[in-house]
Each structure stands twice: as C-alpha cells, then as structure tokens.
C-alpha cells in the first residue's frame, strides 16, 4: 500500500510544548531547520578555519559560494548594496542547504512549508521598506511614481503599488510551490514503482521504467533546488537595489 504523496509534508510535533494556550512544540520542521543551519555553518566555517593559501576542495567550495553571492549582489546593486551581503548570503545558504537536504530520501523539506518561505520573504521585504525609508525618507514613495505625464503616472502609481504588494506573495509562493510540486512528483513516481512490484509477474519487471524516470527527475530536482535558491537571492538583491537607488541607474 503506497502512502499518500502529500504525507511527506506533514508537520508532526516531536517534543510537545504548550505554553499559555500556544502550541510551540518542537516539530520535525524545527529539527530539520536546525540541521540545515548547523550544516550550512559547518560547511562555511570548518574548511576555511585553517585558511590555506592553496585551498583544499572543501575550502574552495566555501570560497566559491561566498564569491558567487558577492558577485551577484555587486552586479545588481553596485558597491553600496554590499551592506546587505550578510542578509542575502544567509538567506541564500539557508535555502540552498534546506533544498538540498530535502532531496535526501526520508528527510523533511523545510522550504516546502509556506510558513517558512513567507517568513524568509517577510525578512527581505521588511528590510527593503525599512532601509528605503531610512535612506530616502518620504522620497522612497517616488518608487511608485514614473517620470511621465500625470494622466499616465497616476494609474501607473496604483499599478506599481499593487505590484509592490504582490512581491512578498510571489517570492514566497515560487519557492514553496516549486519544492511542493517537485517532491510530490517524485513521490507519485515512487508510488508507481511500489504498485508495479506489488502487481507481480511481467508487471514487476516493468517497474524499472518509473525507477529510471525517478533518477532523471532526481537530477532535475537538484537543478531546481539550486535554481530556486538563486532566483530567490537574485530577486531579493533587485528589490534591495531598488530601495537603495530608486529609479536611477548606477
């Protein structure tokens, strides 16, 4: 009997804690988030602790990921954008680690929960709003005003405002839906293998076909796991860059 493909996304409390009517149990999601943070921290600190001039393999991996995010931020928001480097790098490494660890069979995908992705998005968007107002004051609202005649600029300001409000939804939904869809697809394919083996006879031999498909889809999921972390980070960079520079180009 194959399990439901949605069962893997179920949040179950491991250590039930109830304080004042609030359920703050330590769940499997919290556990895997802790593992992701520890894994990312170890990956970035242990290999570079020795700091060799000729890097080892792991050290060059850690240095590459640092350089990759720094280049991305520098390219989209210029020299001034580098103040946001700690935020972007943390978010990128967390999502990347969580996505990759979700691909281990039997693990829990933290980023397939909209609560997690929306919290990450809220962090980025609040940083955009706070730093935008801190830097430009009320001039930050010029973000919504285009350089155009009033009868075009007025409706466009409304549209720009709606687009700005849709950003947190789109940013969190993209990561969540990609992870959810990918893992559901793998699970459905795995269900085919189990069902075909259970059918017996010639049909058991046929189960090799969905198995091969799973391997291919698994490779695709590794690409998607990286790509979604990259897209999340680069869109965050662009939003932050808009808060820094408004409409002018650097």
């Amino acid at each position, binding site marked *: 009997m194959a399990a439901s493909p949605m069962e893997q996304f179920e949040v179950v409390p491991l250590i039930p804690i109830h304080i004042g009517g609030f359920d703050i149990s330590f769940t499997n999601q919290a556990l895997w988030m802790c593992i992701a943070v520890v894994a990312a921290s170890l990956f970035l600190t242990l290999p570079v602790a020795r700091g060799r001039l000729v890097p080892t393999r792991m050290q060059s991996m850690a240095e590459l990921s640092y350089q990759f995010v720094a280049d991305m931020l520098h390219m*989209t928001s210029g020299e001034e954008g580098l103040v946001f480097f700690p935020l972007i790098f943390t978010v990128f490494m967390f999502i990347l680690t969580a996505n990759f660890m979700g691909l281990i069979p039997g693990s829990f995908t933290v980023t397939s929960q909209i609560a997690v992705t929306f919290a990450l998005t809220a962090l980025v968007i609040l940083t955009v709003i706070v730093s935008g107002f801190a830097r430009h004051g009320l001039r930050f609202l010029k973000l919504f005003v285009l350089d155009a005649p009033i009868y075009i600029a007025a409706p466009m300001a409304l549209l720009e405002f709606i687009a700005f409000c849709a950003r947190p939804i*789109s940013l969190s939904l993209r990561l969540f*839906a990609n992870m959810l869809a990918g893992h559901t697809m793998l699970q459905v394919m795995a269900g085919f293998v189990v069902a075909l083996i259970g059918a017996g006879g010639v049909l058991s031999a046929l189960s090799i076909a969905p198995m091969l498909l799973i391997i291919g889809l698994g490779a695709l999921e590794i690409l998607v796991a990286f*790509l979604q972390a990259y*897209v999340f980070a680069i869109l965050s960079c662009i939003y932050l860059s808009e808060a820094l520079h408004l409409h002018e180009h650097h």
Partner: protein
Amino acid sequence: MDIIQAAKFLGAGMATIAFVGSGIGIGIVFGNYISAALRNPGAAQSQFTNLYIGYALCELQGLFGLLIALILMFT
C-alpha cells in the same frame, strides 16, 4: 455533495492548464536567450541575471494555477 466534490476536482484539473502558458513563456525566454547569445557571445554573460528573472516571472504564472488547484483540492 458529490457533485460539489466532482466540480472541485474538475476545477483543480483545469487550473493546471496554467502551465501551458508557463511552458510557452519559459521556452520563449530560453530560446531567445540562446539565439541572442549565439549572435553576440560576448554580451551573453551580462544578460544571465535578466534570463533568470524572466524565467522566474514566467514560471510564477503557472504556479498560480497550481496554487488554485491546491486550494480547490484541500479546502
């Protein structure tokens, strides 16, 4: 109540049609990027960011369909 359940499933199935547009869009984005990159390989690297922004925006339109399907299935 069976008819409502059936209508929900039909609606969820129809919501996945959103991925048609998503697929066409992603095809156009990557196809145009490759044809432009082959004409001017020197400028290809600088447009890499724009490529993935375009890809992300196209993909999002399909994911809205998935979201509606999920809402219909699980509420």
